[in-house]
Every structure is written in C-alpha cells, then in structure tokens.
C-alpha cells in the first residue's frame, strides 16, 4: 500500500489519510461482523447493506481491491446467491487483516 500516493490522490496529507484508514478499519470491522452474522442467518438484505457501506468507503479511499470484493458480495447477496459468498467474505477478511497489519505492523 502506497499511503503517500493514496493520500495525494485525495489531496490529503499522509497523516490525514492514515486517520481515514483507521476509521475505515474501525467501521469496516463492524460492517464485516454484520456480514458474517447475516450470512449465518441468511439475511441477504443485511449483507447487501453492509457490503454497500464497505464498498463506498473503500472506493472513496482508493482501496479498489476491497471495493471490488465488497461490490461482488453486494451483488451476489442482491441475487440471493448466498452460498457463493463464503469465498468472497473470506477474501474480504484477508484484505482487512492485511490493511490492519500494514498500519499497525
């Protein structure tokens, strides 16, 4: 992750961008838990909502990989194809962990 580049793309200082990423990890984790929970309950509606939130935030922060996966989850949930989601949710989790590791070592 090239934080300097990502921050510059948004016209922000690197510290400001880091603040946003922290917030994203915070809120994103909550959303991710909601997705896991909803997946267990087969609540496609809730999966869609939470994936949508992650997609939007990640997209705006320039985290395009995350945004893509979240978008795939949102779309699958919209089509009610929940069984196809497990892999994508796993990928999302890996991505979150990677960002977390990157930020906090």
């Amino acid at each position, binding site marked *: 992750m090239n934080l300097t580049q990502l921050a510059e*793309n948004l016209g922000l200082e690197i510290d400001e961008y880091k603040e*946003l990423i922290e917030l994203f990890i915070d809120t994103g984790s909550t959303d991710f838990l909601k997705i896991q929970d909803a997946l267990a309950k087969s609540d496609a509606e809730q999966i869609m909502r939470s994936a949508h939130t992650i997609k939007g935030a990640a997209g705006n922060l*320039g985290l395009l990989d995350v945004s893509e996966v979240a978008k795939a989850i949102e779309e699958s949930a919209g089509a009610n194809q929940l069984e196809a989601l497990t892999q994508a949710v796993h990928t999302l989790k890996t991505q979150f962990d990677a960002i977390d590791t990157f930020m906090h070592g």
Partner: protein
Amino acid sequence: MMTREKAQEPAGMSSKKTIMDLLKRIKQIETEQENSQKAQKALKESEERFRLISETINFGVFEIGADGSCLYANTRYQQIFGINLAQSLTTQWHEYLQDDDKARVSEAWRTAINAMEEFSVDCRIVSRSGKQRWVHVHSSPVFSDEGARYTGTVEDITHRKRTEQELKKAKEEAELGSRAKSQFLANMSHEIRTPMNGVIGFTDLLLETELDEVQIDYTHTIKRSGEALLSLINDILDFSKIETGELEFEQIDFDPELLAYDVCDLVRPKIGSRPIELLCSIQADVPALVKGDPLRFRQVITNLLGNAPKFTEKGEIGLSLSVEEETETRVKLHATISDTGIGIPPDKISVIFEPFQQADGSTTRKYGGTGLGLSICKQLANMMNGNAWAESREGAGSTFHFTAWLDKSESEMPTRVAPGVLENKRVLLVDDHAGNRKILKHIVTNAKMTPTCLDNGREAAAAINVARGENRPYDVCLVDLGMPDMDGYAVAREVKKDIEKPPLLIALSSALERDAQKCEAAGFDGFIAKPVRRKKLLQMIARLLGEDPGNRLERAKTRKMHTQYSVREAMKQSVQILLAEDNLVNQKLAVMMLGKAGYNVIVAANGKEAVAAFTENPKAYDLIFMDVQMPEMDGKAATQTLRRLGFCEIPIVAMTAHAMKGDREMCLEAGMNDYITKPIKRETVFDMIKKYVFQKEES
C-alpha cells in the same frame, strides 16, 4: 298680359270672357310647353354632360340596382373588363376577379352590400380577353325612395401596381445586398477570430518555454498585437451584428452589483502600479437581481470602465450604479464611470460616440482601440432603451454615463447575511482615501452597523483602546493595507500586540493574492480585495462575528497546521456546504477534503437530518451534496421534500454509487441539479462547487 286682356274687353262681356279664358288657357299651355321644353333641354344637356363625362372619363363607372343587377356601365368599364354593353349589363364586376383574389374580395363585397357600407379594394381581375389587370374598385350606396342602389368606379391601376412592385423588389434586393455584405463581414470576423485565438494561445505556451530576454520581448509584442487585433475583430463583429439586426438580447436574471465588481476586477490589472484608486459604489436601491442581458450590460460597462485607465495617470476611477427611474415591472439603471484623466475637448465630446471617431486622430496610435467601442456602447444602450453619453472638463477628467431599462426579476435573491448579527455592531474604518471611506461607511450603515472613520493608521490602535476604555468597544475593524503614514500590517500588529480582546481585523487590499500570507502573519482575521464587494464584506463580517471565540481560536490553529492555507482562502469559508452522507468514512473524507480547500461543511447522517439542518437555516448553505442511498430517508426523498417546501434555489448534487444511466434521470427528476458518481473524485467535487456556487454568483 293683363294689359292685353284689358284691351280686348270691349268685344262684349260673355264672349269676351270666354275668349279671355281660352287665351289664358293657351297662354298657360304655351308656358307649360315652354317650361317643359326648357326642362327637357336642360335634362338633355345634363344627360349629355353626364354621358360625355362618363364616356370620356378614365374610370369605369357602374350602377347596381337593389336586386343586384347592373343598371349602367360606361365604355371605360367595358374596356377594362373587355366586354360589350350587353355583357356589361348582364354580368357583375366581381365575376372577373382573378382566382387568387376571388374568394376574399367577393366575400368583402357581399358583406359591404348586406351592411350597406362603402366598399373600396385593390384587386386583380382577368378581362374577357384574358388580360390581367390590377383595379381599384370603389363603391358606395345611394339611397332613394325606390330603395338602395350602388354606384361605383373601377380604376385600372395596373401600371401603378407594377411600379410599386418593382420599387419594392428593388428595395428588397438592395436590403438583401446590404445584409449579405454585413453577413459577410460578420462571417469573416468570426473566421478570423478562430486562428487569432490559436495565435494568442500558442504565444502563451511559447512564453512558458525557455526564452531569452529578446525572445520574451518579441513574444510579448506578438501577444499584444494579437490581442489588439482580436479586440478589433470582436468590435467589428458586434458592429456588423448591430447593423444586420442580428444582435439578440437575452432575458435572464443577473446581479448588477456582482457584475459591476466583476468588471472592476477585470479592469484593475490595467491600472498597474499607477497611483489610482478604483472605487465602486452601488446605491442601496439597486435591486439584487434584474432581468436582461448580463453580457451586453457588462460589455458596455467594461468598455467604458476599460477606457478610463488608458487616459488616467493618477487619481481616481469610479464606477457607480444607481436607479434612475422605476415602474411596477421595470427599472432604469444608471451607471456612471468617472476618471481624473486627460479629459475630452468640448468639440469632440459629441462625436466620440460616432463610429470610427476618437477624440484625437493620434489617440489610436497612443491609446489603441478601434474607435468602434463607444459607438457600440451607445447602440447597445439604445437597444436597452437607454443611452450613453459623456461629460468632461479637459485636464480634469471625464464622466461617462450609461442608462438601460431592465426588467425586475421575479425571483427573490436570497440575502445570506443574517441581519441580526450585524445590527448595532460598531465598526472602525481605517482608510486614507476619502472616497473609499464614504463607500465603506455607506455599506456598513445600510447594514445597520455603527461606523467610525479614521483617515490614518497611526491613530487606529489608540482609538480602539479609547473605545474599550469607554466601554463601547469596536466589534470589527476594517484596515486599508496601503496607507502612507502607517500601513495596514503595522496597524494590525500593533492592535494584536497591545490590545486585549482586539476587534476582528479585516484587511482591505487593492493588491492580489501575494499579500494574503503577510496578512495572516500580521494577525488579520479576514482579507477582502478592493473594490470592496458589499455582499462579500457583510457576509464575511457576519460569519466572523457569528463564530464563537473558541471557534476563532480553533480556526487560527487549523490555519497554522496547513501553511498553504492562506487568508485569502478564508473567503471560501463564506461558502457553506451541507453534506448528507451516512457512511462515517465518507463523511470524514468529505469534511477533510472540503475543509482543506477552505469550505465549511456541515454533515447530516441521513435525509431526515439533512432536511432538518437545511430548513433550520436555509440561508446559511450554498450547496448540498446528497448521497442517494441513506437510511431513514434517502437522497431522493430528501430532495423532493426540500423542493416541496419551496427551497428551489439551493443547488443539490447527488452522489450515487450506481453508474447506471437511469440514475441520472432519477436524480434530476427528483429535483437535483446534478450528480457525481462514487468513488468521489476530488476534481469532480470542486468542479461542482465551482459550477454551482462561484459561477452562479458571477453570472
């Protein structure tokens, strides 16, 4: 007679009487016969006279009975229609009408007869021999004991008509030719303009490359010459458009005040470093919005104001706008442009508005210009039902006047300044220029503030201290940066250093951006470029006064955090944006992004909050960014609610995650002005602000 009867009396009474009677009778008959012969002769003579006139006159004459049959027609009548006597009595004139005229004229004739009215018409007929003629038929009713008849005349006007048509055709051809010439000129001007823009554009690019001094000098000359040529072409284009009547006038709302200040901004660089004060004063009764053609209105003012620096070496150039006349629906604005320049000789003052005339033949060489500018101004003014004229005293300066009628605007301009915030606030105005002080005083007094004026910087700090001591401290202090005795920076430093709880300090500067950082360092809270825009000034004072002291401190800190954040950027703080967005990350990002650029952002977490925040203080916001998908109330519903509540002016820009085509239509249908797709790009956001906040104010 009696004497003769008396003479015959002696022949015996009875026979005598009989004879007398007989004689009397004979005499009577003779007289009657004589009278009758006389009458007959007179009649014959009259008839002869009538016939002579009727048969020699160059008019066809006809008489029509009550039953519609022709009773009489003269020879000329027969000639015109190419018919004989019998035919003239068995047909009627309108039977010979040419097909194109038949229906219309016959109908008019019938109507006239039925209503017993006079009838008069020019029409075309086809004679029996097939000859086409133009005739003028005139007929009027004659009333007698036997009822109504119609008598009338038919005149052959073919020759006259033909001449008329030829003249008309010749005139049309001449006009067409003239139009074609002007059109050619207009096209030519347009065609020349395109490559000229290329020349100037590439000269600019050339100037950005590495050039030595001589090359720079030559390139600048190319650029200046190019610009001069371009302005000449533009003038000719306008002039030929006026000539061909092709100049169209728009009817749109615009703010005359903003327009005036914009023109000042445009003209200011032309003054350069000369000691000239540029003053702009808008009378309070000038409406916030008028309806007309802002481009043309601006063109006239730009031209007149743009001339002033050419002829002025020092002193003042002033633009003032006032209302001269007013009706229920319209308003006549009067712009006065004055300078303290070389002036215009009295014998030239009337001709300078003529095309290709300048006060001095050498003027063109020295000052440039086509000599078309003022003529265009006058014509534009006339087209706006106003006028343009000038007064001048040679050596003392000139005053140009421009008047125009404009419609009053139906839409109400939202005034962003909360009146309560400014009322009774005490202002100290520090400016060495009397004209400026007058204008500033006028502006703040109209906003119900209480001003005190100072003409020098030295006394400013003392005055602020004295006022504090007397327990009537100043709330705001406006300081001119360029004063001879003590400049504004020094005043600010002194005030901030020596005075506890100093008033808000706003710098007034006629220079450009480079002063801003210096202002910040000197401790100014705000920065306003001269000539001072009334609205901007009041807006800034209101916003600064509205901030609580904590906020002020906070702002001072943030400013220090970002060094590139200049005081001039604080102008942007007068722009407040409402952001409706539920996603926390996006909220924070937007606040950072916009805040960094100097905009104020208020965040609402969903549509409901957005509607509540906006309705609470609609005047505080300049733009709403609205996420489409939100909990509680989505962006579409929130927009519809706001529009339904009558907030139609506030621009709303949708932020949508879907790049689908239908989304755009949905947003616009819901009453949004525009949309951007996520992920949000910085440039797109700023473009929207530019488009809906700044350009709106400028246009």
